[in-house]
């Protein structure tokens, strides 16, 4: 575990891509094969399931350290990370001479413990805490135990490191680590050298992601070279038919076929050996519904008839990656598009819509069209170079997303909470309110958008102007005014204000404004009327 803990330490400590890459390469060069497979699994979102609930781990740690629970909670709010809090609290000299068990020993133990009694789980946890002599070792152990591993390493970086170590091409590595494989049974060699595509018919391609366009589009050159489409606000996905079976993947590398039964009827219509790239969007008669509707069905295990009627999904397809079993990604976009148009026209099914191409002659004309994005339930425009191949990951140059300006509203901060990770021990998570007559009504939380210096100032304000002394949330004097930006607004019965915002964040601190100058609940309702229906 030392080697793995060291890797996690370096990845967390450095912000330099080169050093992260170096650490990954060194790890893959010397770690044992079983551990390597688990690391790839962990870094690609294939976390082992949680063995013990956070509440139990917390309770057992407080008991083990002989601390009252309230004090444990204070520590947790300050550290902002449960696994780290526990790793720091467990007393014991740093001891480098303890047994160094491999990563897979712990993960395999967790899998075996899945059905064990609470007592057995607890014993294993306590034994491991004592065995793991260092804070960093206990930290990664707790992360695995609580199923909370999230690592700041991009897929790109992982692929790059593996490509170096295995002498394979990057796209090959990307493809091999994608899809449906089980880290508990596959060996490193099988995973990396599996040239047999048939072995897993469901395997998607790595997604090609667009870069945000910061400059004006005229910097892109001639308009003839570019294809424009709406940028849909849905779930990016791939629709695959191989071996006469249909698979739906989300960009989060999740097989979501079961969640979208609407696509089942496409199975017999699609030709064998095809992979389509597009957006999973709730839509009725080809017209998208607000994304908030989608959120009412995403989390559900069972998709009821009622939901299928009220929030049916459609696949807005915009690219074809495989046709008749052949990889099409190197063919220019303009040719892929022609093929795609023929296929969708032939199928002619309401669950499969082609994402229309927007015709335009000048950039100014396109800019005028972009202004209407929200009315079209889009987040803006996509600009794709007609000659572009379908690349891997976020690459600059050929695909751009040109989003519309966000909606904004002025609000006052009323609650604050300490953050986590880099924001540990700082009040960085805020709740905002607008005016409702003489009262304030909370309507949004936001975590990002301030500079480090501003965060320090707000943190100082919260510490001096809060009511509570304990617990995670501080009620603060409603004094600081911020302009919030958000992408969309929808009616919500779960929020006191009656609205739910999409991607709210702090646009700027309005030091020039007083709490009485902020917007009102009626302003929000007007926005809902215009943009949320």
């Amino acid at each position: 575990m030392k080697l793995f803990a060291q890797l996690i330490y370096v990845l967390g400590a450095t912000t330099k891509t080169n050093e992260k890459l170096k650490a990954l390469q060194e790890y893959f060069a010397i770690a044992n094969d079983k551990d390597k497979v688990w690391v790839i699994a962990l870094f690609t979102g294939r976390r082992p399931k949680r063995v013990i609930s956070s509440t139990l781990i917390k309770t057992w740690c407080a008991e083990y350290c002989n601390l009252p629970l309230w004090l444990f909670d204070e520590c947790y709010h300050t550290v902002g990370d449960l696994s780290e809090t526990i790793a720091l609290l467990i007393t014991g000299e740093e001891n480098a001479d303890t047994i160094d068990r491999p990563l897979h020993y712990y993960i395999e133990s967790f899998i075996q413990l899945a059905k064990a009694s609470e007592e057995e789980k607890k014993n294993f946890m306590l034994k491991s805490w004592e065995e793991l002599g260092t804070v960093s070792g206990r930290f990664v152990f707790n992360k695995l135990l609580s199923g909370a591993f999230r690592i700041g390493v991009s897929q790109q970086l992982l692929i790059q490191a593996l490509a170096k170590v295995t002498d394979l091409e990057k796209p090959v590595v990307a493809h091999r680590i994608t899809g449906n494989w089980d880290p508990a049974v596959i060996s490193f060699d099988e995973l990396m050298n599996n040239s047999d595509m048939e072995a897993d018919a469901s395997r998607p391609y790595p997604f090609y992601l667009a870069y945000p366009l910061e400059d004006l589009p005229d910097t892109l050159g001639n308009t003839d070279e570019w294809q424009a489409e709406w940028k849909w606000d849905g779930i990016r996905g791939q629709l695959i038919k191989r071996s006469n079976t249909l698979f739906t993947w989300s960009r989060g590398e999740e097989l979501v076929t079961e969640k979208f039964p609407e696509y089942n009827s496409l199975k017999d219509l699609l030709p064998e050996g095809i992979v389509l790239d597009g957006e999973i969007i709730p839509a009725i008669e080809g017209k998208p519904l607000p994304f908030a509707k989608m959120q009412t069905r995403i989390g559900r295990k069972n998709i009821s008839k009622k939901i299928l009627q009220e929030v049916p999904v459609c696949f807005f397809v915009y690219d074809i990656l495989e046709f008749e079993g052949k990889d099409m990604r190197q063919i220019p976009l303009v040719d892929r598009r022609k093929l795609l148009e023929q296929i969708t026209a032939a199928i002619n099914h309401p669950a499969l819509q082609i994402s229309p191409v927007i015709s335009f002659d000048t950039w100014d004309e396109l800019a005028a069209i972009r202004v209407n994005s929200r009315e079209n339930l889009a987040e803006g425009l996509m600009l794709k170079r007609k000659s572009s191949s379908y690349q891997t990951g976020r690459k600059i140059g050929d695909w751009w997303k040109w989003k519309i300006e966000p909606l904004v509203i002025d609000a006052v901060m009323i609650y604050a909470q300490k953050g986590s990770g880099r924001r540990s021990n700082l009040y960085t998570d805020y709740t905002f309110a607008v005016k409702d007559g003489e009262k304030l009504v909370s309507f949004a939380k936001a975590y990002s958008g301030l500079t480090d210096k501003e965060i320090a100032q707000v943190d100082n304000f919260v510490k001096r102007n809060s009511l509570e002394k304990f617990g995670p949330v501080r009620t603060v004097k409603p004094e600081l005014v911020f302009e919030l930006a958000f992408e969309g607004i929808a009616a919500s019965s779960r929020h006191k204000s009656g609205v739910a915002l999409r991607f709210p964040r702090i646009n700027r601190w309005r030091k020039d404004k007083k709490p009485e100058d902020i917007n009102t609940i009626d302003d929000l309702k007007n926005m809902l009327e215009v943009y949320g229906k």
Partner: protein
Amino acid sequence: MPLIEFTDSGLYCRAGNFYIDPWKPVERAIITHAHSDHARHGSKYYLCHHKTKPILQLRLGDNNYQSVEWNESISMNGVKISLHPAGHIIGSSQIRVEHNGEVWVFSGDYKLEDDGLSGAFEPVKCNVFITESTFGLPIYKWKKQSVIYHDIQQWVLKNQADDKASVIIAYSLGKAQRVLQAISAVTDNIFVHGAIWNTQEALLMAGENLPVVKRVNPDSSKADFKNAVVIAPPGADGSPWMKRFTPYSLAICSGWMQVRGNARRRNADRGFVLSDHADWDGLLTAVKATGAEKVFVTHGFQAAFSKYLNENGIAAAEVKTAYGNDEETETSIEV
């Protein structure tokens, strides 16, 4: 009337008519140590330890200073005052105040481990103890100084092997001298920022024995810094002043480095958990050693620490003061 009152100007002893570490100008101030949140401008008279005086002179200019040795008693209006080592930085002292058989002690800032520079913390029996609580949560537990020094030394050697300078961020008074103590065992190629240079000069004048260092000058050439160690105060971190040391590796020495997120936020290559404050166990040990029947908890995690003391049979209350943050916020415009 309690022997020491908590007023808008600071801790006030009415019977002796003096303040301890006041944050507003007063007639008579007793100073625990020379950090800027405890020793402020504008008072008419300052009483401090012999070793604090030269630094006060450097930082506050010429004033009416009186200095004393530890455990030497003086009297003000019949109130007996003595200073006792606090182990925080050079000259740092706890202030013991005795009147009509009642003893109060203000800890100032303190740590229990003897760092070899600041004098060993002395537990002082008292009725009422006023303690800091900068690191008053059980997540803060320090390793031994020797272990941390070893880590710092290894890091410097590693950087030298990689052909990099080692830039270490440390508070100019206290931490910088400890870092110096650690690295002088492995190198004599040491540069310091102007703020640390000035402190060093004042300490040398006062007879402290410190390793030889070079000042970073505007006309120093880039080649001078190759494989060198540079000690700089927090205010220099992230400023263009740092560019001249490239290529370098950056480390921060502070108790706050205990938590990963704090270390990551500072964007340093390494965080060394080296503090001049007591950790959780240190605070508890110090409080118990005083035998105090009442404890006031100031700057830090005062709510949590005082609640814990109350639950464990020690009557405690929290007090708001203007101290704190020396580990985080030292800024310096001197170059």
